[in-house]
């Protein structure tokens, strides 16, 4: 078993699902590609997952479930997503239940937990409207007060699982005067509605996740009782924005699962495919693409896992952390999948050839993650509105309370440290300028300075990591100065330049997360992790956003990275800073000799 117990559920799920290349496995590539071709909802898979009791891990212990923390959650969502984003997302719409765990009454929590556990029920999120998209306050769906409850009217579209779900969370206008308090949030249990008062809208055909139940729902004088409302009347926008802080960060787990399959499939191809008397992997250029892709996965890991744990430590900062992760990790991994498609060559475009055509499906599916649940611009916008505060806070709090900050960072990033329970009521609309990850840079530099005497480290690696960390700090200082000096617009009139500044902020936050991840885990995540070459190379990759190649320290030899990539591949482990055990791959057939061993022997 894995020494870190947050990975036990993921490992057990892997073991029981089995090798995705074996067509007989549940969620095999063959099964999910077939379903995708037929655009069919993955009912069998979803039922299997319920029977496995995975849904218990979406329900907190105090509500009768087994949810522990988001690090565990991210790990098992990766397991689902590496096989099939359609089913992974369809099952994980259950993460909307956190709206109730966060804001519901005891009775609402009890009802929802029972619906999930006893009826194997699922839910969907009805926020979007055809005419208003991201503009939640502009919505036309109304909830009009009547004796004992409300009448819902209007249409929500496009909604994932709008039809195949028993509960839908509906954001509706309760105050015609408009404004931030004009919306309320309702937990609508379809079983309690008069059937004549609502209709499902037809399936929407999509580019990827084709088997999804993408549809919508229309209400016509649909009566919901008073006790369907979550929180106070007028609390809808506030709850919606806080709920997004949870789900947006978790979306990164979808991308990471998909990225694993894209890289694993392409790597396998590159190791088998022989041209000009050698394998594709033996050619320096394709090998570089694959090792860089592996670095992208590790970079994403540091941000995603750090945030998953940070939920339990610094929930009041998640308006910032979550926007960073949702933007940065999903966009970078989407780009990474496109990068490796160049190595897969012609097969990247084929829907059957090579591993059942899973790459082509993954490529199509992964493109939605950066868009739904708050698109890239929406996340950057949420972040850029806070950048003045963030810069001000940093200027004021330099070097203040380093012990407290260090303890918080150690709990967020030290994977062997116990986590306090997550409390959704501590989420805040804005972080009041606080962002531990970037504020912790001076601390990280002090720790790096103290490592000079550490014999286990190569001086060049430590030197590069230190140099890059100083560079992150310098770029942050210059960004802060720029933000402070630039004119600030309210509303939706922000300049394109400010969106670029928000992107830079995300890159710097992620780079700092990589440094913290290394510093707090050097002694228990294995040799490859401890040596830190991956970190120096990753930071270099991130700093290329800011500096010219020739102004950076030279690129370290990446042989160790390629070797680790092959090791994880041949031992069937997740490409990750926590390379937990995947289901063992079936032995290769005789006609396709494995070159794994030859490569390892080199």
């Amino acid at each position, binding site marked *: 078993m894995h020494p870190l117990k947050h990975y036990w559920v993921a490992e057990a799920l892997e073991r029981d699902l089995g090798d995705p290349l074996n067509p007989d496995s549940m969620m095999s590539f063959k099964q999910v590609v077939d379903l995708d071709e037929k655009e069919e909802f993955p009912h069998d898979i979803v039922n299997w997952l319920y029977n496995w009791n995975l849904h218990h891990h979406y329900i907190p212990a105090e509500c009768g479930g087994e949810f522990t923390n988001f690090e565990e959650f991210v790990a098992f969502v990766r397991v689902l997503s590496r096989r099939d984003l359609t089913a992974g997302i369809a099952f994980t719409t259950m993460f909307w239940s956190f709206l109730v765990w966060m804001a519901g009454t005891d009775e609402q929590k009890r009802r929802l937990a029972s619906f999930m556990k006893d009826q194997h029920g699922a839910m969907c999120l009805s926020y979007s409207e055809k005419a208003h998209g991201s503009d939640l306050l502009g919505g036309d769906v109304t909830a009009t007060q009547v004796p004992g409850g409300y009448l819902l009217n209007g249409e929500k579209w496009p909604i994932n699982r709008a039809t195949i779900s028993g509960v839908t969370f509906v954001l509706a206008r309760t105050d015609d005067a408009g*404004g*931030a308090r004009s919306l309320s949030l309702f937990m609508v249990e379809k079983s309690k509605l008069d059937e004549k008062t609502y209709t499902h809208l037809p399936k929407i055909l999509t580019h990827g996740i084709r088997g999804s139940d993408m549809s919508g729902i229309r209400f016509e004088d649909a009566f919901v009782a008073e006790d369907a409302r979550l929180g106070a009347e007028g609390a809808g*926008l506030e709850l919606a924005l806080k709920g997004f802080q949870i789900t947006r960060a978790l979306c990164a787990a979808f991308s990471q699962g998909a990225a694993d399959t894209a890289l694993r499939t392409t790597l396998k191809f590159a190791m088998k495919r022989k041209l000009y008397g050698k394998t594709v992997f033996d050619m320096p250029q394709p090998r570089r693409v694959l090792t860089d892709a592996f670095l992208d996965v590790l970079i994403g890991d540091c941000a995603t896992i750090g945030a998953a744990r940070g939920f339990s430590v610094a929930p009041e900062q998640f308006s910032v952390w979550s926007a960073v992760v949702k933007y940065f990790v999903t966009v970078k991994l989407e780009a990474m999948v496109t990068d490796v498609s160049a190595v897969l060559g012609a097969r990247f475009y084929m829907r059957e050839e090579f591993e059942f055509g899973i790459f082509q499906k993954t490529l199509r599916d992964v493109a939605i993650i950066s868009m739904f649940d708050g698109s890239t611009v929406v996340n950057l916008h949420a972040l850029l*509105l806070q950048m003045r505060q963030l810069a001000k806070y940093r200027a004021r709090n330099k070097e203040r309370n380093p012990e407290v900050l260090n303890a918080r960072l150690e709990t967020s990033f030290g994977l062997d440290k116990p986590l306090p329970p997550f409390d959704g009521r501590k989420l805040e609309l804005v972080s009041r300028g606080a962002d531990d990850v970037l504020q912790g840079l001076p601390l990280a530099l002090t720790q790096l300075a103290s490592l000079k005497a550490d014999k286990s480290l190569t001086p060049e690696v430590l030197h590069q990591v230190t140099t890059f960390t100083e560079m992150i700090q310098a770029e942050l200082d210059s960004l802060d100065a720029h933000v402070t000096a630039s*004119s600030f617009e*309210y*509303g939706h009139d922000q300049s394109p330049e400010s969106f670029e500044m928000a992107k830079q902020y995300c890159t710097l936050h992620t780079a700092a997360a990589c440094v913290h991840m290394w510093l707090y885990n050097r002694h228990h995540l294995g040799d490859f992790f401890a040596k830190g070459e991956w970190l120096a190379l990753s930071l270099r990759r991130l700093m290329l956003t800011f500096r010219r190649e020739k102004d950076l320290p030279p690129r370290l030899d990446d042989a160790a990275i390629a070797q680790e990539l092959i090791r994880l591949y041949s031992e069937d482990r997740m490409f990750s800073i926590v390379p937990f055990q995947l289901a063992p791959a079936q032995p290769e057939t005789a006609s396709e000799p494995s070159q794994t061993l030859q490569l390892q022997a080199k």
Partner: protein
Amino acid sequence: MTQATATTEIFAIEAIQTWMVNQIATQLSIPAANIKVSEPLTRYGLDSIDSVTIVGDLEDWLGEDLPSTLLWDYPTIAKAASYLVEEIGVSPAAEAA
């Protein structure tokens, strides 16, 4: 309430109103005279998240933690200033000086 406390409160409310008017006028590059304390802030093109960030600036100025949804619940400058002084007991005298 004594005459003296009532006067102090009026000064406090005025100080907060003046600060908010100036702050918003500067940020939006419009003359302070165009901003009416009795108008909802949304009238000046400020949306819900903007008003949360204004609360951040207000916190900095007053040196106090405030509810981030202050301007959602008290959507005009006049209402927000009265709430701060009368319900929370904020006194900006020192800062405003």
